């Protein structure tokens, strides 16, 4: 036999054996049936929607939980909810991860003290204890403290509704003192101002929707201030119906600022002068609707026009114009807050703001106290200082800390709370997530606490929240059993109280609540509220009056001047992390910051001038490397990589609140407000470099003409159209549907909620810092900021453009990506062999390649697999993936339409990104239907398509920003 024959034989025999075993897939899978049919309305594989409340920040957005096969898989805003009407922010979308977080505390823990030498070598540890032992140790400690004459205290984050009532009754029954609540964003100055001016202790609802002129000073209304989702929605409504003009003043740079119709920069501290000018204007020109009594007018801080001009850097004409515009408006609204009220003269700024609101009559219209947010139990940093003093004097027995910053990492160091906290006799933390692999964290907890109790997630427990005056969100558990051995705060308190009193029968919090609800709302209203997810009373009329005597007192010790000659650091709230509480969620870390596109890590944003002054040279560094600078101020120092932020005023730098060393934070002793403006900043170059996970290659368009500007006069809206083509009209191929989208850049606020929603809807993995640095992020949709020379910024929402002539399609060697009859650029994942040609050929960089099997890499560590959307596959290693307009939702809508023997209606398919958008910037629909919203928008004067000159003919029609005079 020769070599050739040998090979032939071997070849034939081998292929025969391979072929014969083809198609065999041995299945040993089990099917476990239910014991009983599930509840009414349950259909296997179909989604059920249940109402809940978002607990990621105090705004209290209503949430509709999509439950498939008994597992919550997606959160959406609750339609018609008075706060958020269907929309949700990026943190709200990500908050589902809190329920399934693999690092959730799985049962009560306590520090392991003493013991074997071996234990000491392995460092501090937390050991599990049973609930019985935990409860017993607390009741023992409560009694011991009582006998020793010490106070037992309860410190929580902002609490409302029934839980607040329960804490009160628990405190009474067990002799525990309820401390003022701690919120990092406590709005202490704002509240103090409203107390001084109007004698109220709550914060109003700002009715942006009713305004035709909006002036915001420092308040980051689109990021964290009060209820940003609601603000975004209301802005949109006001723009549509009232032709709103929005002017934003800020000393630094923020997303909110870029999204205002006009962004104006004020020197630090000069906000008070601007407001003082406005106040004088309205009082002096007899334009006031509510007059100020003489004694108040006399005690107003003196701000002559020359001083206002000097401080604000605005000319007298500009100032007068601004005041005139505001005076001419039918429904003006002024919102003062954020960084402007968190500085040395922040109290004065807030006071003057409240006075302007009173004088112009806003307090009766757009500044609505009938739907006020109750902050009466929320304290301020002074309360923590007092608490720390009591701790130092060893007056505290048991200290409960719950639903707040349990390690006091946002609390200014000068309160000396963290260092004294261990002096309480027995410390109990109520915690949901605690990474026990993080040695530092475990050490902090074991040093600070004697017991850690695991809290159930709000989706696992009954509860309510009084979001605004007369608006109560009702939450029912959407999951039958808690995932881990956790309990709700209500259940813990009821049980503790029972044990303390030695009472017999235990009451479950659910029953306690139902009794309370029935008594408060009545049977019928309760049933309705359980259906809708909230209960709303009509707003009662509120009569406000000027608190003259208190105001005169408050005005006595005011000092308007707080200017600074040197560099100033602003500690700003983060749209991704709020005050740091959302940092535990993988997704909030993965979604990039919309201004810098940085996802992971810490950084300081500096101006280009400051970078030049420091001699930072990023041009010679490779793409994602940045130079590390050292920042110093009276209190402390930090070393951070520097990001050059376009639009940043020269002497200003910013850092996010959750990233700052609390030693740098100061406190206003008058009101207990945390001062987030840090003066006397000195920056120096360290010479070291660090790598930052920056998503964007460039944040300027250069000559690329991605977004056309209205000023260009050549071509269609200054944009180059694709050349005429010899190919047949793509629309000939489409018969029933051509799915398309329009994205309005005028209304888009760049909040990145769409990005977050897309991750959850489409089972997109969070890949972590290292892979983000390598540019292997998996986001199907991204927010790309482009800064222009006029000082503005456009957020371009970039996702698969579903091109008619898609460059990706014709390079696929295996027909894994193809164009279907509905215009979609479909991706057949199981057919993809991973050549990545399509990715190379895509001019929009919207295709993502699975370099790894992310399930194996822990992207969905148990129990996170339970949040995977069963309507879409989890793509394995070596497969390309991308946006297909939430094809599973199109399929669902077509399924329903087919049942009813009709076509899919306009608005029936809403992709996850469009669904969660607070400003309805994204419209989706059928471009063949000339009555559809998306078709109408695609015919707009402002319409353009990205990189149209390439002839790709995308299905996403962007609407460029309107030209402002």
């Amino acid at each position: 036999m020769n070599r050739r024959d040998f090979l032939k034989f071997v070849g034939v025999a081998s292929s025969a054996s391979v072929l014969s075993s083809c198609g065999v897939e041995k299945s040993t899978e089990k099917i476990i049936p239910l014991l009983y049919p599930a509840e009414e309305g349950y259909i296997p594989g179909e989604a059920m929607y249940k109402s809940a409340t978002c607990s990621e920040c105090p705004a209290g957005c209503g949430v509709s939980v999509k439950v498939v096969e008994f597992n919550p898989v997606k959160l959406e805003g609750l339609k018609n909810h008075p706060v958020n009407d269907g929309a949700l922010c990026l943190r709200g979308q990500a908050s589902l991860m809190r329920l399934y977080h693999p690092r959730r505390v799985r049962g009560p823990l306590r520090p392991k003290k003493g013991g074997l030498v071996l234990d000491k070598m392995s460092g501090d540890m937390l050991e599990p204890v049973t609930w019985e032992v935990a409860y017993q140790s607390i009741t023992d400690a409560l009694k011991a403290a009582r006998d020793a004459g010490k106070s037992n205290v309860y410190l929580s984050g902002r609490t409302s509704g029934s839980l607040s009532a329960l804490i009160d009754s628990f405190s009474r029954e067990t002799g525990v003192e309820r401390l003022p609540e701690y919120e990092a964003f406590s709005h202490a100055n704002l509240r103090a101002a409203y107390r001084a001016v109007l004698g109220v202790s709550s914060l109003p609802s700002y009715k942006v929707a009713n305004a035709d002129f909006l002036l915001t000073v420092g308040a980051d209304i689109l990021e964290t201030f009060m209820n940003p989702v609601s603000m975004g929605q209301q802005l949109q409504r006001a723009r549509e119906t009232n032709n709103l003009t929005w002017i934003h003043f800020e000393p630094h740079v923020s997303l909110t600022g870029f999204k205002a119709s006009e962004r104006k920069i004020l020197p630090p501290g000069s906000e008070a002068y601007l407001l003082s000018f406005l106040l004088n204007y309205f009082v002096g020109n007899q334009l006031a609707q509510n007059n100020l009594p003489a004694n108040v007018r006399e005690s107003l801080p003196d701000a002559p026009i020359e001083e206002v001009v000097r401080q604000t850097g605005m000319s007298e004409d500009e100032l007068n114009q601004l005041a005139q515009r505001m005076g001419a408006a039918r429904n003006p609204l002024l919102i003062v807050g954020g960084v402007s009220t968190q500085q040395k003269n922040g109290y004065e700024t807030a006071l003057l703001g409240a006075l302007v609101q009173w004088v112009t009559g806003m307090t009766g219209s757009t500044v609505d106290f009938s739907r006020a947010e109750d902050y009466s139990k929320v304290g301020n940093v002074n309360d923590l200082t007092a608490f720390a003093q009591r701790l130092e004097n060893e007056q505290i027995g048991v200290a409960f800390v719950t639903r707040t910053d349990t390690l006091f990492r946002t609390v200014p160091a000068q309160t000396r709370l963290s260092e004294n906290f261990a002096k309480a006799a027995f410390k109990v933390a109520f915690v949901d997530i605690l990474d026990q692999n993080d040695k530092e964290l475990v050490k902090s907890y074991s040093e600070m606490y004697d017991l850690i109790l695991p809290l159930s997630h709000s989706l696992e427990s009954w509860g309510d929240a009084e979001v605004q005056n007369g608006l109560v969100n009702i939450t029912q558990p959407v999951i039958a059993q808690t995932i881990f051995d956790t309990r709700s705060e209500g259940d813990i308190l009821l049980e503790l109280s029972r044990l303390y009193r030695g009472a017999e029968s235990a009451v479950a919090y659910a029953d306690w609540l139902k009794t309370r609800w029935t008594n408060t709302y009545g049977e019928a209203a309760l049933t309705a509220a359980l259906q809708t997810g909230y209960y709303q009373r009509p707003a009662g009329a509120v009569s406000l009056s000027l608190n003259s005597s208190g105001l005169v007192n408050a005005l006595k010790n005011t000092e308007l001047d707080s200017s600074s000659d040197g560099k100033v650091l602003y500690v700003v709230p983060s749209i991704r992390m709020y005050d740091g509480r959302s940092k535990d969620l993988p997704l909030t870390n993965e979604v990039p910051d919309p201004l810098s596109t940085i996802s992971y890590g810490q950084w300081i944003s500096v101006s280009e001038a400051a970078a030049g002054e420091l001699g930072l040279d990023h041009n010679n560094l490779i793409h994602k490397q940045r130079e590390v600078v050292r920042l110093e101020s009276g209190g402390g120092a930090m070393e951070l990589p520097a990001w050059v932020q376009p639009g940043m005023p020269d002497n200003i730098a910013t850092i996010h609140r959750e990233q700052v060393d609390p030693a740098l934070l100061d406190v206003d002793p008058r009101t207990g407000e945390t001062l987030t403006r840090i003066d006397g900043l000195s920056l120096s170059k360290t010479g070291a470099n660090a790598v930052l996970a920056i998503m964007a290659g460039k944040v300027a368009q250069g000559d690329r003409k991605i977004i056309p500007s209205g000023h260009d006069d050549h071509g269609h809206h200054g944009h180059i159209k694709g050349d005429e083509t010899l190919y047949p009209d793509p629309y000939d191929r489409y018969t029933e549907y051509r799915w398309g989208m329009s994205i309005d850049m005028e209304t888009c606020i760049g909040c990145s909620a769409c990005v977050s929603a897309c991750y959850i809807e489409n089972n997109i993995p969070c890949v972590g810092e290292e892979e983000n640095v390598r540019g292997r992020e998996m986001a199907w949709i991204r927010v790309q900021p482009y800064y222009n020379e006029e000082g503005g910024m456009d957020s371009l929402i970039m996702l698969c453009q579903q091109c008619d002539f898609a460059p990706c399609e014709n390079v696929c060697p295996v027909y894994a990506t193809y164009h279907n009859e509905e215009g979609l650029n479909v991706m057949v994942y199981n057919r993809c062999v991973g050549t990545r040609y399509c990715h190379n050929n895509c001019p929009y960089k919207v295709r993502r390649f699975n370099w790894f099997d992310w399930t194996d890499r822990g992207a969905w560590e148990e129990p996170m697999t339970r949040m995977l959307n069963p309507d879409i596959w989890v793509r394995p290693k070596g497969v390309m993936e991308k946006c297909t307009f939430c094809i599973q939702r199109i399929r669902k809508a077509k399924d329903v339409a087919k049942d009813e023997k009709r076509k899919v209606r306009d608005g029936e398919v809403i992709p996850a990104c469009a669904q969660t958008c607070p400003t309805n910037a994204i419209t989706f629909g059928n471009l063949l239907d000339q009555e559809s919203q998306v078709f109408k928008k695609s015919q707009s004067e402002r319409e353009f398509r990205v990189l149209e000159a390439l002839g790709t003919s995308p299905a996403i029609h962007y609407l460029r920003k309107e030209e402002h005079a």
Partner: protein
Amino acid sequence: MRIIVPLILAAFFVVVALAIGGANVFWATYEDAPPQPVAFPHDIHAGNGVGQQNLPCTRCHLYVEESRFATIPPMSVCMECHGNMQSDKPEIIKLQQYWERQEPIPWQRIHSVPKHVYFSHKRHIKAGVDCAVCHGDMKVVTEVKKVRTLQMGFCVSCHRANAAPTDCWTCHH
């Protein structure tokens, strides 16, 4: 050398023969009905012969007309009849014991499609496809086994024959 080459060849063919044999045995057992924890006879329930109940499929597979999944019936559906029925048949006693323990029967899955495939029972039933097309005639089988490959070729040939959509994303996601 003259002996070594045939030896290697012989050894190779032995290995190949074993592999083919093994695969065949495996395939044969695969095609066999896997042992179920309770030997449920479909013919007695669904058949229309003497002593058979002639129940429609939807009597037990409750969701097949409105859901993607036909689903194995909840145990309470079995007990609607078997709850009041005294029997000395060992399999019925087994069922009743499971019920008394309030323990679901861990059935062995027989029909499945890969995770990247979307299949809706509802759509097929509404289009008038008979259950037997994919599952075989359940009126005559005692033990359920897979009678169709349920692979893509099987699906597509039927889709083509009936002018059903063959766009990839109809089934793939």
